């Protein structure tokens, strides 16, 4: 699984894709490809991280990401422990600082954190000796999602990133998935388009290395992949949108709109999907959908990340 002998993983934490070099990304994706084979065996388990402890600290509701990390850890034979917000000291008003010290005292090898505050993963990483994986912090970053999207696109595009065009459609402003994907895919040479109503675009977007579209029909023309983002119902309550029906009329990816993309262009969605809202059921279930492939890629990619961080303490990853 190691081609470049000179390569060495050097990061204590994975907080955002911005910290990764191109060799880091390639290494993670190659490692994920080898773990993907494990996941297809009758016995889906390797002893690689036997005796290692991984804490899943999810201070924000999550089912799929948490399960994905849990499965990834268990398939590497690590012990995984969950700490959820409800029923924990977090809901009793304990500060993140105090939670951090409590976690440290348990001496885990890796902590995966999901938190509603942007910067929360960095906050705990600065205070802990163990490796920290950002499982999503506020609107800021979701590096393992971007890596698994990258893994999925690499396969769909047969390893070619440079010169490809990806459209990310939906709520960009409040999306950590969008931020991490913009960083990672532009780093790989992909042209990124974003499409959303202006109320769902981030401040300072003029400095982002992306092309902006306000109509989906224009945005989707000739792209090599489409990523739809989940629309959160609270955006309507925040006054950013008039109503959901209008949103879906303007921004739902229908089979007809998808036909304007390059043929075979894969369709991605970080899930959970709102059928008929940002993505038509016929597209979500259609031949170009890679949504379930993303889930499988998620386990493999997270196995790679957990492996790299948990092994690092032992002096390298060979």
């Amino acid at each position, binding site marked *: 699984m190691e081609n470049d002998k000179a390569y060495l993983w050097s990061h204590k934490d994975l907080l955002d894709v911005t910290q990764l070099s191109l060799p880091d990304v390639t290494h993670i994706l190659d490692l994920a490809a080898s773990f993907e084979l494990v996941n297809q065996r009758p016995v889906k388990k390797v002893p690689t991280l036997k005796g290692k402890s991984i804490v899943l600290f999810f201070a924000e509701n999550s089912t799929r990401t948490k399960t994905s990390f849990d499965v990834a850890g268990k398939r590497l034979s690590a012990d995984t422990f969950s700490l959820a917000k409800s029923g924990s000291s977090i809901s009793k008003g304990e*500060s*993140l*600082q105090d939670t951090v010290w409590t976690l440290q005292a348990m001496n885990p090898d890796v902590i995966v954190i999901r*938190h509603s*505050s*942007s*910067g*929360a993963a*960095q*906050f705990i990483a600065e205070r802990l000796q163990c490796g920290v994986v950002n499982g999503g*912090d*506020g*609107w*800021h*970053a979701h590096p393992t999602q971007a890596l698994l999207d990258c893994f999925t696109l690499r396969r769909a595009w047969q390893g070619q990133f440079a010169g490809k065009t990806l459209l990310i459609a939906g709520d960009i*402003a409040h999306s*950590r998935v969008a*931020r991490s994907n913009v960083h990672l895919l532009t780093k790989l040479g992909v042209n990124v388009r974003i499409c959303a109503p202006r109320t769902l675009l*981030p*401040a*300072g*977007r003029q*400095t*982002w290395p992306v092309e902006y579209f306000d109509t989906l029909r224009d945005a989707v023309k000739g792209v090599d992949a489409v990523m739809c983002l989940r629309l959160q119902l609270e955006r309507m309550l925040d006054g950013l949108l008039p109503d959901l029906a209008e949103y879906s009329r303007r921004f739902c990816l229908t089979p007809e709109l998808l036909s304007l993309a390059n043929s075979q262009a894969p369709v991605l969605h970080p899930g959970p999907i709102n059928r008929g809202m940002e993505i038509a059921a016929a597209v979500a279930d259609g031949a170009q959908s890679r949504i379930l492939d993303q889930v499988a890629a998620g386990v493999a990619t997270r196995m790679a990340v957990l492996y790299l961080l948990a092994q690092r303490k032992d002096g390298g990853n060979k």
Partner: protein
Amino acid sequence: MTLCITNARYLGALVDVFVKGGLIENMIQAGHHKADAGTEVFDAQGQVLFPSFIDCHVHLREPGYEYKEDVASGLQAAVHGGFGAVMCMANTKPVNDCAAVTEYILQAARKAFPQGGPHVYPVGAATVGLLGQEMAPLAELAQAGCVAISNDGHSMENSELMRRVMEYAADLKRIVIDHCEDASLARGTHMNEGITSGMIGVKGQPDVGEALHVARDILLADYLDLPVHIAHVSCKRAVDLIRWGKARGVKVTAETCPHYLLLDDSALENYGTNAKVNPPLRTPADVAALREAVKDGTIDIFVTDHAPHAAHEKECPLDEAPNGFTGLDLALSLTYTLVREGFLQEADLERLWSRKPAEIFDLPVNMFAPGDPANFFLFDPEARWLVSPETIYSKSCNTPYAGQELRGRVSAHWLEGKRIF
């Protein structure tokens, strides 16, 4: 008892200052007059002499938040920062919206310096509980010792109420200081809205929220022909409006803080809670506009907006942290960097930190004329010091400069001719 400070550098010239009975007797060129026998002589050895500064915007936190600061610790920070007087805002617990709280604060100040010390001038709440609904008893507050009126910490959303407060306060010869912020545009925000907020995924506050209320206040002041004072101006849009108002003859005055002249919102790119303040640090273009406004007089005065918070309150993710910087200990060291850069002169600092604040709020001030109160301090511009909880006198060290070395510090301070430290 008489006192002579010799060899002090005042606005570039070496001077001797003679003090008698707590008042300035005279200031003359150094070495031209020998002190009489029995005069206490203090050799300033060429250190910089300033009249005591007046900070028209601080939060002393007492009563109610003594773990952040109390009147005694806040005043220690003040005198060690060069301030002989502070105006403290009303957002204590309980709020300073009645005479009992005003008197409590004044009493705490007397207790802190029983032999006489820095002046505390409370600012009375504009509305009951600072809730923005009913006018507070402004005459009662004025009589108890409040020198100005403000809803600081909260915006005045109700323009009708703002108008009535300005009118009612005018009869009492009190100026209204307005914290300008449109609540709907500021709700749920943690920093300036801009490139950094978009990049790091934090909800930002657009500067137009501040400018909207600045515009409203200037138009009200114009319409009513009454004064209004704009608190902690942070952005170019607000500066442009104030400049327009002044050119039109509106009685608008304005303040800004050292941090708006020295820092921009990129200071938050790593989620540093010590850089979280309200109004938020804006963009480099705003910093440039504010500097120009300070130089040309559009901004009348400097204030610290001293807002101490305990360490544990800032040890959290950005969106959970309270707003504000400790400021009294650092103010002169920070603003003197503008002199060092050649952007301002020492005379500008004296104007911005002392003469103009006294003029706007009608407070006693030392201009080194015979009979002025002998309030002054010496500043060693070369002293280097590390900003830390151990080196500052405020109870809290919540500042983006924590852990950094600053240049220049107050070395001695006299109030009414008596050495405070």
